[in-house]
Structures are given as structure tokens and as C-alpha cells.
């Protein structure tokens, strides 16, 4: 079975960084700047190879903006 990957919904995401800090392998970082035209840096999966699909990021997100697909 293929590993699931975190997909971030930028309509909901607050750019709070909880997922960035929670990932045990630092696979997510603030690399998407200004997706909502607000100068905010939004998180994105930067290291596909290291992501284990563990779902911690999704579980920790306070606004349920991360889905594992």
C-alpha cells in the first residue's frame, strides 16, 4: 500500500507552525509564501522521502487543515 502524505488546505491553515514543530523529521517547513496574498509563510511538505505518513502533523493541527491522502 502506498504511504499517505499530508495535504494542507490553505483556506483553513492559519500558518501557526504547530505542524512544522510537531513533525519528528522536520518534513514540513514554511516555504509557501503569500498563497493567500497576506505575506504569510505557509507550511508545505518539503521532504517527501523522509515523511513516514505517521499523521502527527495532521493530529496536532488546531484547525484540522491537514489531511493525509
Amino acid at each position, binding site marked *: 500500500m502506498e504511504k499517505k502524505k499530508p495535504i494542507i488546505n490553505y483556506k483553513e491553515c492559519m500558518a501557526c*507552525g504547530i505542524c512544522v514543530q510537531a513533525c519528528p523529521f522536520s518534513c514540513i517547513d514554511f516555504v509557501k509564501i503569500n498563497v493567500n496574498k497576506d505575506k504569510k509563510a505557509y507550511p508545505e511538505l518539503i521532504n517527501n522521502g523522509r515523511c513516514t505518513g505517521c499523521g502527527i502533523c495532521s493530529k496536532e493541527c488546531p484547525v484540522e487543515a491537514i489531511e493525509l491522502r
Partner: protein
Amino acid sequence: MKGYIGKILIVDLTTGIFEEQKVEDEVYENLLSGVGLGAYTLYKNIPKGADPLGPDNMLGFVSGLLTGTGSVMTGRWMVVCKSPLTGGWGDSNCGGTFSPAIKQCGYDGIFFKGISVFPVYLYVDNRGAELRDASYLWGKDAVETEDILEKENWNNKKPAIAVIGTSSEKKSLISGICNDRGRIAARSGVGAVMGSKRLKAVVLAGSKPIKCHDPKTVKKYSKEFSKKIKKTNMPQIMTGRMLPLMGKALTIPKNIIPIDGIVSASMMKKWGTGFGNTMGMYNGDDPIKNWAGSVVDYDKSYYNNVNPDKVLKREYKKYHCYSCVIGCGGVCDIKGIGNGEFTHTHKPEYETVNAFGALLMNKDLESIFYINELLNRAGMDSISAGNTIAYAIECYENGLITKDDTDGLELTWGNAEAIVELVKRMIARQGFGDVLADGVKVAVKKIGEETSKYAMHAGGQEPGMHDPRMDPALGVHYSADPTPGRHTVGAFGYYNYMHLWTKVSWVPKLKLSTPKKVEFEASDRNGIITMANSCIKQILDGSGGCLFAMISGVHNWKIFEWLNAATGWDKTPDEYMIIGKRMQTLRQMFNIREGINPIDFKIKDRIAGRPPLKEGPLKGKTLPIEGMIQKHWEHFGWNPETGVPTEETIEELGLDELLNN
């Protein structure tokens, strides 16, 4: 499953011995985590009369109880120690990602005692902790050091790093501890303590989960709050040019207008703290010309160059502390400023812009960007440095010092070039810079008592950039807090925004019919309000909450509800306020034990409006500071004349028992 970990790490830098200590639930239930846990640990472990820069002082890095539980805007961490600046209790608050990192290493706090023979840094990950040689980093600035340590220690997880810059290595009493390349725990002289221990950095790379009693309920409130923040925006047409008008408008009504604090979020989202840089000129919040001037002096011809819109022009992305849904910070492009030494800097905060702008009559914004980065790298407190330079300029302008004293610098108001040069010399402790490098109180000792009238401080701590003649509660908190000179403790303005009365039974509700002038009275009403401000601030510092979330209102940002859900406790807001009172009383007890006379922390007369200003929005304003302090202490159950917590209060709060266990 309680939100807190229940463990601390104590590192003896003299012997290299590590000790993991379990902390009883009782401590958290009485004092929360964060500053409460810190005060408990330090009160028990620092011997009376310890030299703040000696081996007996302890330096603690503590996380907040709510950090990492799923609550939002609760990612601040605190440094605690005995302060070399005031000689009493010291703490300082900072953002970034360091707070969750402490807990992810399996601790609520990491404490240091002793002094290392050579420079070291502490490294902690899931497997444990070790001290490593940091000789190769000594002499490097905070940003360089963080870059190097991050590269060297990024294995599985990107580490969070707290580090000192060069001014802390040189034990400047106005230096702090930095993280995230430009956030700084700047107050109380905490950087000097870290420097005195030869501890260059703390590198945290743990990834242990942070547990929470009822994550579902915690998240429910996080979602509600996030939605509100998302919806709260400044209308497009609202530009920085309107801020002075808003400031003016605020001075018109004669009565207090209750405001829902959530509106502050829209300003924070747009400008960050900087919106105050022009608004505050007109409502009197911004100190100008070393607290003796007004917008009549620092007029349009000045602030046309130094204003929040101009600052935003250089901002290319926003910056958030961990778990923040507002994001008041920013990162700015500064290529081409100051010989092009630096490419970017954290957006200068309101405090820095005012301390190096209006306070010094400086209209050169580029110099402020440059100084901001110099100070962030050196780890020097911009509030203290600005106040100290303002003092030096006033001494120079009045002939109390001359070019002979300043090593040739022409220290006139607004001479940006001289100000930049002086900052560099303060950081390097070179010549006249060395005279100023420990803040105004030490500078007066070196230059002469006759200059004391120009030295603005409270108990050695230079005050934040908010004027008590506009908001007298600030004067009380500057003067009567165990950590004096702090603008972050409380104000009548914050009280208005916070809506504490929606949760706490005994605090007065603001009414539209209340005339503003009641704020200038030494009354019980005001004593209760300032006391409540201090209590809620302690709860905040025990939880890791951000002040800017707090002032959005406890009816919006549900700190009491989060605390119960995260811990599984069932406490009422009134009970939490008692915890706040206990934390504050413990910090005051620390000061009393160290021989501090609390009344010595009273803010300088000029700042209390003696004599009152002759023009500007604060014209004629004086506050009855002594009486207001007395009312504040009285409502804490401390001796109103002396500020010493009474035995009955200590017993009632159970502190005698707790500290003797």
C-alpha cells in the same frame, strides 16, 4: 495526561553533573508552569544574597503549561534568574519555537547553576543531554552562532536554539537571550547571567509528544478563536496615514469607551506592533525626547519618515511565533543599509522604533533598521539601550558631558550617525560605550549623581515605550511589580480590551458612563484593577500565552477553559486568579529576601508627570503614583506602605507550606 510534563533538568556547569527532578502535581496546581515553576525552583535553590553573576545564581528556561497542547498563541517561553539589573527577581519572555522544544525534550524547564571553566553549549534530544565545547563560537554574534549550531545539529529534527550574542559574553547588564535569529528575551539582564556562566547556547532537538488531558475541547476553542482572527481584518482603505487621526480621536471622549479586544488583532495582522508608532504620538502613549517632549517636538516632519507604513515597505514576509494565528512579526529586506552588511532583519518592533526614533528625536528610519539588526545580533535590549542613549544625549545637550567624555561623538538629538556609532561602542564596550553598556542606573554611578534627573528607570530597569501619563496603570506596574519597568504587565487599556469581568467575579465591569479622569485617582477601584492585571499576567506567564492574545479578551481567547481542558482540573477563573496572586507574591517574596526595598522601584518623577508636560496630549497630567502603588499592594494583601507580603497573605496562599515541603 496533564498538559505539563512534571519534570525538570538541572545542569551544574561547574561539575558537569545533570540531575533530572520530578516536580509534584501540587506545584503546578498552585503555581502553574512557566514563571510559576521557575519562581518555585529558584526560590528554593538560590541562596539568599547570591551574586547574580556568580555560580550560585540559577538560570532557568521554562516553557508554558499550555504550550503544545493544541491551544493557540501559547508558544512563549520564559527565562528566569536573579536579575543583575535590579538585584531581585528576574524574568523575561520570548517567542519563536523554543517553548515547545523544551517540552519535546521531556522537560517543563531546564535550569543551570555554577559556572563553566570554558564556553559550552547544552545539547538535548530524545536520548538525553550533553554539554559540548563552545569555544569556537565564543565571540560570534547570535545569528552566526544559530546558523552554525543549526547546521551542525540538524539530524532528524531541526533544532530550536537559544543563544547569547557578544554583549552578553561581555556581561552587559542590558543584554538578553536570543532565538529564531531575532527574537529576544531582553529584559532583567538575563543575557549577562548566561554570559557569566559561559553558556553560549542551548540546542534542543527532542521530538517527544506533549500530552493533553482533553485535546478535543482544547481544539474546539482553538478553532473558534482562529475563525474570529481570520475574520478580523483592517478595511483596505485604512492606511498608516490614518493612524495619527485615530490617535487624536482617542483623546476626545471624556468617558471610557469599552472596546472588544479582538479589534487589536486587525492592527497586529496588518502592521504588527508598529501601528503604535504614529497613533501613540497623538494619544500620548509614545515617550518622546527622553520622556520630556511631545508630538509638538516630534512632529510630522519627523514621523513622515518614521512610520509603520514605511516599515512595512521593507517587510517581505510575516513572522509567527509557534502556535500563533495572528503573526505580528515580519522579516524585512535591509540590503543596501549600513554598508550592506546584512541582508535582512526581523521587523523592528514598536518598542525599538520608538526607543531609537521619537525618544531620541531621530528621523532616520534606515538607521533604526540597522540598529535593530546590530542589537539583535549582539543580544542587547533595544528598550534599555534607547533609554540609556536618550539619557546620554540629554546630558550632552545640557553640558553635563562633553566631547571629551563621549570620545568625540557629537551626541545631539537626532544625530543618527552618532547614535549608530554609540550603539556599536556599547556592544563592544569601547570607551564611552562601556560607560553606557550596563544601562542608565550604572551610567549615573559612573558619570555622576547630578545626571540622575535624566536617567529614566524603575529600580534599574529602563521602562518600555508606553507613557503612564496617558495610562496611569502603567506607572503602577512599572513601579510596583517585582520586575519593574515592564510595559507588558498591565494597563487600563489592556484591562478594557481583556474583558476579565466576563469570567472573574470580583473585578469591576467597565461602563460607558465612567469618566476617564477616575484613572488618575489613588482609589480602590484602580487598586483592584491593577492587582487583577498583575494576576492575569502571571497566569499568562505560567501558561506560555502571548500578551497580544490576552488583550484580544478572555471571552475570545479562552485561557481559563484551555487550562482546565489541558490539565483535567476543574478550577474556576477566580481560582486561577488566586494562582496568579500566589505567583506574584512568591516573586515579591524573592525580592524581599534579597533585601530589596520595593518602594525603591518607583518610576522617576518625570514619568509620573512631576513636573507635568507643558504641551502635547499629556499637557498638565500628573499621577498620584505613591497612592496608586499603595492601593495596588493593599489589594494584594501586602503591606501598603512597604510592599512586603504580610504573613497572613503568605499563609492564606499556602506559600509557607509549599516552600517548606
